[in-house]
């Protein structure tokens, strides 16, 4: 008792002497964890709507016979028997004559919900192409020339980058080939909007890396703000930054182009479009998605990947990573060239992960990586990819091969 008579002052001093415990992690490590955790936290928020969406879909499937009877009173019980099959064709019909934007919106919601329950896509179209990759890989090139065109989808909300493989007759410059190929694009067959060839005279000045675009006086590119931004965006995304830094506009030889809201535009600087997240875009009646970048740029590949867990409804884009991936992903790390994706022990990638993997690879490429590696991945392979190996990144998204009549000469 005697010795232990500590004064309050002494207690206070003892407290002040408690050691300064420190966190030894680096800020980078903390930030990385943070990025992963930040979305994990949000899980309940989007889990509810997606569960609700799946439930709604199941209900829809159950009710679809009677539903179709509703909408089309002439067709009753016989039609109803063909059930879900019918509901699908019905949807297509509906969308085709969807003139006004309201019904188009409805339809869009429809198809969003629909693909929220992925396995369903088999119903929409032949499942045959399911395990084919969609992007262009170096082994695909095989003597082809590679060109990229940004092509708007029918609602002109987004531009889908299409990597076109085409044979050259030999001797053309890339720009000549770019112009020639522009005429052979089959946008509508690909589920996109007819846009090319452009209603304009194009020329390329190699020294200054500029493209000159001369439109006729009656051009339509300036009517309505949608088509005007589309025009600029499509040009900017179709012309490769490595070769073109600036676009100059003229109208029948007179400097500038009249673009609705923006007024007279004389030139457009092309930005190095980088650091985007890639999403799925399902064109009408197609089981395979196009893999499409959204406008936003992100600081880290981790942030971009997180975004890819979520649909972008306003753009009609679907999440390109399954929700399960959020929990399977343990960490991301990288050196200069390789992005390492570490998955949880015992995790198993879903059977339809092929296109998600492509979306990851395209995003990684967009962030300047040259390869990705998955650690702890099961199964060992997905589509043609051996997951025990380092995977080189694709050349470009959304492959289309043109063996057009025009080139057939050789």
């Amino acid at each position, binding site marked *: *008792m005697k*010795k*232990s*008579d*500590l004064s*309050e002052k002494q*207690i*206070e001093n*003892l*407290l*002040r*002497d*408690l*050691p*300064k*415990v*420190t*966190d030894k*992690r680096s*800020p*980078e490590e*903390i*930030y990385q*964890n*943070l990025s992963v*955790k*930040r979305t994990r*936290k949000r899980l309940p928020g989007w889990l509810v709507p997606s569960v609700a969406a799946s439930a709604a879909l199941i209900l829809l499937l159950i009710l679809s016979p009677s539903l179709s009877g509703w909408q089309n009173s002439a067709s009753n019980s016989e039609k109803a028997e063909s059930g879900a099959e019918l509901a699908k064709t019905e949807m297509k019909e509906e969308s085709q004559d969807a003139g006004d934007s309201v019904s188009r919106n409805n339809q869009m919601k429809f198809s969003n919900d629909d693909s929220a329950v992925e396995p369903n896509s088999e119903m929409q179209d032949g499942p045959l192409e399911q395990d084919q990759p969609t992007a262009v890989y170096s082994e695909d090139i095989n003597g082809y020339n590679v060109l990229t065109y940004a092509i708007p989808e029918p609602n002109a909300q987004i531009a889908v980058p299409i990597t076109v493989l085409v044979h050259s007759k030999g001797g053309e410059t890339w720009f000549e080939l770019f112009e020639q190929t522009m005429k052979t694009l089959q946008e509508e067959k690909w589920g996109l909007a007819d846009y090319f060839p452009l209603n304009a005279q194009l020329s390329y000045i190699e020294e200054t890396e500029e493209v000159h675009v001369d439109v006729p006086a009656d051009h339509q590119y300036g009517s309505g703000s949608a088509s005007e931004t589309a025009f600029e965006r499509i040009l900017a995304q179709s012309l490769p930054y490595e070769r073109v830094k600036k676009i100059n506009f003229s109208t029948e030889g007179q400097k500038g182009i009249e673009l609705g809201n923006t007024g007279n535009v004389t030139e457009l600087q092309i930005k190095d479009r980088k650091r985007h997240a890639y999403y799925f875009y399902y064109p009408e009646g197609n089981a395979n998605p196009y893999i499409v970048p959204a406008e936003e740029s992100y*600081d*880290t590949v981790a942030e971009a990947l997180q975004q890819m867990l979520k649909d972008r409804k306003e753009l009609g884009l679907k999440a390109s990573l399954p929700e399960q991936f959020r929990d399977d992903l343990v960490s991301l790390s990288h050196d200069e060239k390789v992005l390492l994706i570490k998955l949880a022990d015992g995790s198993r990638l879903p059977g339809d992960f092929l296109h998600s993997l492509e979306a990851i690879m395209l995003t990684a490429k967009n962030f300047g990586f040259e390869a990705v590696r998955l650690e702890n991945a099961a199964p060992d392979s997905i589509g043609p990819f051996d997951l025990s190996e380092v995977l080189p990144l694709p050349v470009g998204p959304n492959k289309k091969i043109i063996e057009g009549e025009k080139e057939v000469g050789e």
Partner: protein
Amino acid sequence: MDSVFDILYQKYHQDLYRFLFYMVKNKELAEDLVQEVYIRVLKAYDRFEGKSSEKTWLFSIAKNVAIDHFRKQKGWKQWLLEKLDFSAAQVRDQMPLPEELAQQKETIQRMYECLDQCTVDQKMVIILRYIHELSISETAEVLSWTESKVKTTQHRAIKALKKLMEATEKEVMPSEKVRP
């Protein structure tokens, strides 16, 4: 990296970490919780009005994170026990001492142990006042208390710690006295 994160990290990270560490006495847990603080801060940073200082604002978020953690982690039973101030600490598993503490002299280690037996309120005040050396008014701001509540809680905490220190010393003394 997010520039807001960068700034916050430089200025406050170790402080926030230390606060949470002394609250939960577990390094890994404190690491998790400090991340939770960042998540909340980054979400709300735009809304920070500058009514209080940035530092007290951050500490108040850290305090909320710690309290939420206690509520969540412990079943209601344990939370209740703690509230009723049973000496639950005696039953609790002994956490291994972090190295910074293992190097300290015995009285400091004992003080560290005694902290566990304070109530959550007392602990918060003690940590903010003595480890972080916040003023009474800053502490009041962090905890959204009045200054007089800070003062009385602090006073009671010191008294309680004094008692605890004396009591634990008695336990130690006999065995030490046997030897000479």
